[in-house]
């Protein structure tokens, strides 16, 4: 079975790990959110450097806000807003917060990409 080599991070360490990678010359490509179960989300942070890849994996309970990496890396701003739109994940300290309305209209209250349970925008 094909698996992705990842570095596991926690909400407490994710910003520091991202900062460490950026300082070492890694470039963030994007982030991916996965609805793992009725209780958990997973966010993957994808980086590359001279065509090599590395990935951070953050698993956290639904309903928990995770730290935004945008203050460290501005390119994450739209990705974090996209994840908030689609999954309802909240990011603490997101400097440009579209409040779940980057793609979706204000009247859309559900989070359409949640698979196991429909989240509600906070």
């Amino acid at each position, binding site marked *: 079975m094909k698996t992705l080599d990842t570095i596991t991070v926690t909400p407490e360490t994710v910003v520091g790990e991202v900062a460490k990678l950026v300082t070492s010359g890694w470039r963030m490509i994007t982030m991916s959110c*996965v609805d793992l179960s009725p209780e958990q989300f997973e966010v993957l942070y994808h980086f590359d450097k001279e065509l090599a890849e590395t990935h951070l994996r953050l698993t956290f309970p639904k309903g928990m806000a995770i730290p935004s990496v945008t203050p460290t890396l501005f390119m994450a*701003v739209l990705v974090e807003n996209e994840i908030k739109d689609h999954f309802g994940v909240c990011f603490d300290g997101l400097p440009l917060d579209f409040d779940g309305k*980057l793609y979706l209209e204000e009247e859309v209250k559900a989070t359409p990409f949640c698979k196991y349970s429909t989240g509600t925008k906070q």
Partner: protein
Amino acid sequence: MARTIIPFGPQHPVLPEPIHLKLVVEDEIVKEALPQLGYVHRGLEKLTEIRDFNQMIQIVERVCGICSKIHAMCFCQGVEEMMGIEVPERAKFLRVIWSELHRIHSHLLWLGLYADAFGFESVFMQFWRIREKIMDINEATAGNRVIVSVNVVGGTRADLSPEQCNWILQELDWVEKETKRLQAVMLDDYTVKKRTVGVGVLTREQAYALGAAGPTLRGSGVAQDMRQFKYAAFDKIDFAPVTAPDGDCYSRGKVRFLETLQSVDLVRQAISRMPQGEIATKFKGNPEGELVTRVEQPRGELLYYLKGNGTKFLERVRIRTPTFANIPPLLAMLPGCELADVPVIALSIDPCISCTER
């Protein structure tokens, strides 16, 4: 000086795609730009819950009308890697041929729109006239001008006969000759340079840090192109990324112009080195595991994150398109520019909002 907010898009004479920017201006100078998306949001990734991995090929082809085939190739590559399917050599070359044809017609389309944006309508018509040849090739070889649906998991579903290959080579000779006739206009013309040189500058450091992709990244001097990964048959084709050093609109235009000619050469190489043989491998089973796969679209790096659970429905399909990556760099290019330059700068990233909003 009082600040004014001017809405730019989603409907604007120079915009082929519904991007919306809120421009904060002082007099005629842009101070800040904020994007607003959502005009064509479709949520195609969600369809993986009700479409199996074979049906998803047709879904991802519709993420973008301009590079439909490249989306499908990226998706199929990921599924093939997950399932351990060895794709026949001939199919890998066929994928390169149709990918590079896509790049040529995408760049020609953009060069025309770009010329139109700075008021050079005759050049717009010339580039689109040349592009028609590529659309004819797509239609004759794949059955459709825009949605080139040739990829299947395990290879391709269409082949090219020796007669078709010869015809493509003849048509590409004409495309190359006609494109080169426009080189002096696009790269040396006084008016074009006045509208593009030094406009919308993105430094090498900004491009890298802000996650720019494709010609937007290479136009700032960073030699990064996913074709260096040697996916499909690129390990058997001579390739080096095209770059330009200055990071302005002129550099991004120059990269795309030269890449058009480079892609003609890549198709020639692929046709001349393509072996005989099968075009698809039969397989059984369902994808299981997770991976990231990347290819180079005309607009830049395309990333697919795929997660399979051993059933025919993938657990997650995540698509990161190049325009989505190029919006933060666009926001960095705009402050300090004149309002009249905004259309040219916005077009210089070759925005595809259909891709961006998926």
